[in-house]
């Protein structure tokens, strides 16, 4: 009896001993993983900052407003680099992608979450997710082989010869090259479409049913339920989905490189070859012969990083702004 008591005591002590540090160790372990993310971000910032020093010292702020791009030093033409073509190309192609993709993708998300018959829901959702999983080089190949020739023949050429004569940014004399900001933007829009659609659907399915029922019980139509109850409730999440899509469009490298034309000049029209920050860095960094060329490319990468950061911050501000005031707060 006494012996059983004693063994039980030691058993309890053993358990206590074994578990007394467990939570602390686990806390420390997960904390170090989390800190790793912060360390990585700072490492990336530090590398891009220090590696771009040469370019920053030589060109200063003018780098961001200059459209010059001459990587080969000759006695007549000294090297000159400017980020303007890359920045303009990135912003314009991403804006085209977003304008084309966001309404359609949100529509797909709404259909899948709210209106789709159950039989269709699973296969359609699967297809949308499959679209998101296709590697970007495949979009690029399809764009180069199929879409660009078709688009140039049937859309770009006719437009530039008619409306393009009047509207300056739809004309141009390099249309026949089949590369340009508009083509890149359209392919980017196809690429970001499934991302936005899938997240919008997920966010909408999280909206509690009571939100829909209140409005239904007041005699609202499906349309009113969706636009007055479901979408407003999920708007923060939908903005998040669009921002994720935008992030993908800004940073997309492969498809953009294959379709944008890689011409480091600010284009005058949407049909002319141009470049984006990501594609410029990707296509030139490996071949850079001089330190200043390399440094300028790293500085462009840093600029891309800054643009992404700024856009994400402004999205946060937008969500905060929409939800402030006496009535209304964030969910989803």
């Amino acid at each position: 009896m006494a012996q059983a008591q004693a063994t039980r005591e030691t058993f309890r002590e053993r358990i206590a001993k074994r578990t007394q540090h467990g939570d602390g160790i686990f806390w420390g372990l997960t904390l170090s993983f989390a800190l790793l993310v912060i360390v990585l971000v700072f490492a990336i910032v530090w590398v891009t900052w220090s590696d771009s020093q040469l370019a920053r010292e030589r060109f200063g702020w003018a780098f961001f407003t200059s459209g010059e791009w001459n990587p080969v030093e000759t006695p007549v033409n000294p090297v000159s680099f400017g980020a303007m073509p890359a920045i303009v190309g990135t912003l314009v192609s991403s804006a085209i992608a977003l304008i084309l993709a966001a309404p359609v993708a949100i529509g797909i998300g709404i259909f899948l979450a709210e209106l789709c018959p159950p039989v269709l829901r699973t296969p359609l959702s699967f297809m949308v997710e499959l679209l998101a999983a296709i590697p970007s080089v495949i979009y690029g190949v399809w764009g180069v082989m199929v879409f660009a020739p078709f688009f140039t023949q049937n859309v770009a050429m006719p437009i530039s010869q008619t409306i393009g004569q009047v509207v300056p940014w739809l004309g141009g004399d390099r249309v026949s090259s089949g590369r340009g900001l508009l083509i890149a933007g359209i392919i980017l829009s196809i690429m970001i479409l499934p991302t936005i659609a899938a997240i919008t659907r997920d966010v909408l399915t999280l909206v509690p049913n009571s939100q829909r029922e209140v409005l239904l019980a007041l005699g609202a139509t499906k349309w009113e339920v969706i636009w007055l109850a479901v979408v407003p409730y999920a708007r923060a999440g939908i903005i998040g989905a669009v921002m994720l899509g935008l992030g993908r469009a800004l940073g997309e490298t492969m498809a953009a490189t294959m379709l944008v034309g890689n011409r480091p000049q600010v284009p005058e029209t949407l049909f002319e070859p141009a470049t984006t920050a990501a594609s410029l860095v990707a296509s030139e960094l490996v071949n850079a012969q001089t330190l200043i060329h390399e440094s300028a490319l790293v500085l462009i990468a840093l600029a891309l990083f800054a643009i992404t950061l700024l856009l994400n911050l402004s999205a946060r501000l937008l969500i905060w702004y929409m939800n402030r005031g006496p009535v209304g707060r964030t969910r989803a």
Partner: protein
Amino acid sequence: MDEAAQQSRLLSGFAKTIAQAKERAAQTSHETKIEAINFNFFYGSFQALRNISIRIPSNQVTAIIGPSGCGKSTFLRAINRMHDRTPGARGEGQLMLDGVNIYGDLDPVKLRRRVGMVFQRPNPFVKSIYDNVAYGLRVQGIRDRRILDEKVETALRRAALWDEVKDRLHKASGTALSGGQQQRLCIARAIAVEPEVILMDEPCSALDPIATMKIEDLIHELSASFTIVIVTHNMQQAMRVSDMTAFMLMDRETRAGELIEFGPTDEIFTNPKDKRTEDYVTGRFG
């Protein structure tokens, strides 16, 4: 001797009550608002309601009582087709509003404009008090500010909430009110669009006793202008607020909900015809 006299007096009083109740039932029977004839309801292959036949009278409070899972909420929500969003849910047989079949001839949107609903949990919109009440009106296309103001005030007065919120109609959010006030706000929102029927799905189950009392008083007053159907777990509440009571029970084998007994409330609670009703209302239900 004394005892016998008292007993006979009690019995005669009792008989009088029953006679009155029967008379009232007879009076109301010709103005049936909602009628079900052999109504069945299914979730996919599962039958949730079987052979429900009931005549819910106009401008009265009808309570539906019964243990959990007996299908009382399913029946209530079938009346304004709240199940439409649930895949596989369907109603069969006849369920009629003013003689028109709800599953068939009525457009669900038009139906719901006539049949409002108050839910178990108070669920005001995250908007101002005014906008909460005006919401249904705006959905129905009323834009005139003067009419809106007037209807919002009327609805809030009828919901006995006006005096408590009139100073902060536009400033305070509907969600900033107390639970009982929120539920009265939801009632105001439902009655603002002037439906004919108001369905209440355990409207007091999330409220404290004082808030519950206020809502019950309100239900009494509203029954003058609306037909009210209320689902409740609380038998005392059914006794206090309702004119008619329906008792539902789940069939043990098929798990389908059935209507056991329907009649004037005092009859159901004092002189039920069915043994199962008696067991339930006397708390002997196992």
